[in-house]
């Protein structure tokens, strides 16, 4: 059976488009060709599939027609449509039908390959002339069935029968056959296989020693180059005074470099003269860092306290005052959460970096930049750490703040944002959560559950509290009814609600659970009616039965904390039950 190569030549595709194509091509190709491709190659300038053994003919296809019962009326029309005589119709499962024989594969490929191109769907796509959309313009097609060219029936993109090598060092490249594709491109400075490109890049980085990829750029860099070359460079030591994450962001987000520790960094180039390319990249990073340093020095000259004083003129949210107002609210919340002096100081300074010019350039580094400025102003480490970690946990798998003061400040920030945004009537909808309230609510729950921080439920207004407590369902992985039950309890703090929900869930199968439930139900049903009739205080003189005395004694001994511990309630249960069994509750006395 023959081998097939199909290459779609493109103008430089984004990495995200490469990944989309990589995910879609196997199924698309299988649908059109009947077999899954042996290899799928994706990269900036080409998407390609290789099929090692393509069946010579496409599979026979059974087309179902009218039911046998309607033979008289419908058979002729059906047969005519498929250009066969009526007596050629076959019967299967009481339907008439026709078998369309498979065709030689070379006859169907021109259309089927075009369907593969048209079938690719990108998150962001464009028009440029042809009647289909693509991530970036497709400019050539190359299809080979063994060593024969296959013309592809796609209007607007030429089938050229050859490929192109590296954009600048090689022009058109002859592809002798499907099997010779990889070799031909590799000889033309192109590595079409994304796995091999990744291996080459990692190998090059490993050769330079320890390397880091804190912002996860490797996946993108693999699709930024066809001919990866890893180069080492370094920036001037004078930039080491900048906050480390500012340097990392300039390297990774802006330039897609990899930090090697100290002042060293790695560049993954797409060819070129290593000396020239290294020199150019070194100058570019120096420019970026110089720009950041210029801004940094201006901020530091103002100082963290000076920046904090400017917060009055910066709006936090329309209708919710300035960042100065927010800082005041944070201080109060930290106080109510039991924060210490360090936490209170951190709360006062937490938003100061919103007035920093550097945060305008590096918005993702809010908090971190403020912490750096606080450090330079001589504030204690504990204060700086709290400022640094105030936005944690900011993702499902993100760590919690690492100190008590930091956890208190992180909770205060989330409570304030939730309360403020809900107060403005901006509840998140299914798809829109522009203020990140879901993330804040989950973070708050994690601070209570995993961080052990006592967060009074009364700190949150009703609607925001409901929204936060609903997050416990997903976080605890406990069925919703237990979370609802726990939320209805008198537990005063968020962690207590969580523990109660977990205890109820854990206790569901134990005997105590049944006992407590029954006892509670009986008392609860009665309480509803008795509220208005019952005597205000317990009068032991009126006890008629031993069971009454026992229950009163047991109650006196018991302190039921709504903290998720069922054992106290379980101990009470038999007394309650006996009480109901023995005593006529609605006795006039």
């Amino acid at each position: 059976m023959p081998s097939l190569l199909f290459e779609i030549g493109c103008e430089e595709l984004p990495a995200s488009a490469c990944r989309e194509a990589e995910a879609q091509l196997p199924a698309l190709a299988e649908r059109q060709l009947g077999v899954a491709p042996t290899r799928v190659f994706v990269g900036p300038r080409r998407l390609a599939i290789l099929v090692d053994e393509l069946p010579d003919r496409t599979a026979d296809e059974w087309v179902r027609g009218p039911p046998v019962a309607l033979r008289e009326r419908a058979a002729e029309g059906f047969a005519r449509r498929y250009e066969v005589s009526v007596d050629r119709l076959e019967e299967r499962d009481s339907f008439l039908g026709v078998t369309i024989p498979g065709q030689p594969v070379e006859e169907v490929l021109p259309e089927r390959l075009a369907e593969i191109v048209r079938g690719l769907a990108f998150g962001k796509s464009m028009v440029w002339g042809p009647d289909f959309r693509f991530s970036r313009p497709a400019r050539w097609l190359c299809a080979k069935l063994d060593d024969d060219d296959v013309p592809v029936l796609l209007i607007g993109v030429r089938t050229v029968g050859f490929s192109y090598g590296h954009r600048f060092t090689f022009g058109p490249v002859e592809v002798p056959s499907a099997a010779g594709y990889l070799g031909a491109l590799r000889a033309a400075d192109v590595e079409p296989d994304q796995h091999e490109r990744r291996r080459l890049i990692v190998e090059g980085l490993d050769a330079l020693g320890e390397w880091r990829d804190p912002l996860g750029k490797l996946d993108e860099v693999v699709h930024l180059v066809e001919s990866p070359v890893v180069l080492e460079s370094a920036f001037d030591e004078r930039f080491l005074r900048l906050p480390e994450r500012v340097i990392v962001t300039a390297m990774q987000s802006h330039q897609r470099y990899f930090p090697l520790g100290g002042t060293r960094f790695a560049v993954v180039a797409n060819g070129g003269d290593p000396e020239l390319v290294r020199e150019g990249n070194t100058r570019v990073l120096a420019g970026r860092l110089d720009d950041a340093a210029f801004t940094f020095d201006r901020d530091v000259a103002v100082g963290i306290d000076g920046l904090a004083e400017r917060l009055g003129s910066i709006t936090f949210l329309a209708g919710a005052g300035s960042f100065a107002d927010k800082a005041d609210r944070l201080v109060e919340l930290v106080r109510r959460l039991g924060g210490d002096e360090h936490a209170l100081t951190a709360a006062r300074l937490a938003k100061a970096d919103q007035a920093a010019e550097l945060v305008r350039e590096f918005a993702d580094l809010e908090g971190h930049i403020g912490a750096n400025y606080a450090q330079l102003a001589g504030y204690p480490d504990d204060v700086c750490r709290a400022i640094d970690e105030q936005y944690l946990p900011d993702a499902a798998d993100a760590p919690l703040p690492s100190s008590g003061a930091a956890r208190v400040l992180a909770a205060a920030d989330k409570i304030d944002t939730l309360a403020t945004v809900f107060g403005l009537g901006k509840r998140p909808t299914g798809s829109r959560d522009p203020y990140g309230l879901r993330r804040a609510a989950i973070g708050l729950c994690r601070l209570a559950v995993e961080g052990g921080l006592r967060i009074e439920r009364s700190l949150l207004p009703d609607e925001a509290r409901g929204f936060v407590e609903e997050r416990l369902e997903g976080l605890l992985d406990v069925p919703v009814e237990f979370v609802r039950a726990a939320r209805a309890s008198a537990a005063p703090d968020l962690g207590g609600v969580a523990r109660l929900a977990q205890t109820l869930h854990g206790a569901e199968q134990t005997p105590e659970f049944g006992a407590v439930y029954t006892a509670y139900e009986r008392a609860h049903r009665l309480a509803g009616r008795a509220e208005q009739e019952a005597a205000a205080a317990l009068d032991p003189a009126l006890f008629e039965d031993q069971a009454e005395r026992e229950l009163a004694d047991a109650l006196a001994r018991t302190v039921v904390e709504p903290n998720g511990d069922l054992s106290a309630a379980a101990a009470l249960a038999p007394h309650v039950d006996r009480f109901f069994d023995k005593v006529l509750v609605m006795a006039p006395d």
Partner: protein
Amino acid sequence: MISALQAYWADYGCVIAQPYHTEVAAGTMNPATFLRSLGPKPWKVAYVEPSIRPTDGRYGENPYRFQHYFQYQVVVKPAPEDILDVYFNSLDALGIDLTAHDVRLVEDDWEQPTLGAWGLGWEVWCDGMEITQWTYFQQLGGIEVELVPAEITYGLERLAMFLQRKDSAFDLEWAPGYTWGDVYRENERQWSTYNYEVAPVDVLLQRFEGHEHECGLLLERRLPLPAYDQVLKCSHTFNLLDARGAISVTERAAYIGRVRTLARRVAELYVELESAEAAVA
């Protein structure tokens, strides 16, 4: 460098246009790009455009930020199949050896909410330096383009820094015996002072209203080209107000919306007249 680009693109068949006569934040806003990219007629143009961005001023103190710098703008509509190669050849014409340097196209999707415009394209990197923004327009003034243009915007200072291996724009040799700093540094200082401290907020607020009103009148008279000038003046006035800190975050969105509405109405009228003319022809 500029004359090399002019010669290259003139040779390619572009109309060599001149900078527009009112302030624009980017060469895209020059009607030679914004309006001519719409409608059914092919178009090729190249020009230098001073880019005026009041909030980017740094009093001439920061060698990387300016409220006034230069772009070289090329529009080819519709973009031919080999347009990227044509562009790369222009770098070659500037003396950049494409085989010795690492020239790459890095995804960059362009969006300009004030103009209701977007497109897909790249930043062109040369050894890590962004020297060009490259965009296939998809929509302008809220209208889908009929013929997809390629917009090529060279950052002239960046390109010169690359070619001259300079770390600061101020040190660029702008002409023999004159640096960029000699010519423009004082400009940066004075204009930053004006943009941030002196520009009269009350007058600007009135001016914005006035330009908006006049734009409406011109649209009624079915004169999209003069009306478009009023859109540009609104946009620049808004930028100045922004630099003066006179616009709150909430008001910002409203102002941008007003400019976008005007841009859309101008674009619609322009396309209507162009299409009618094309139909007659």
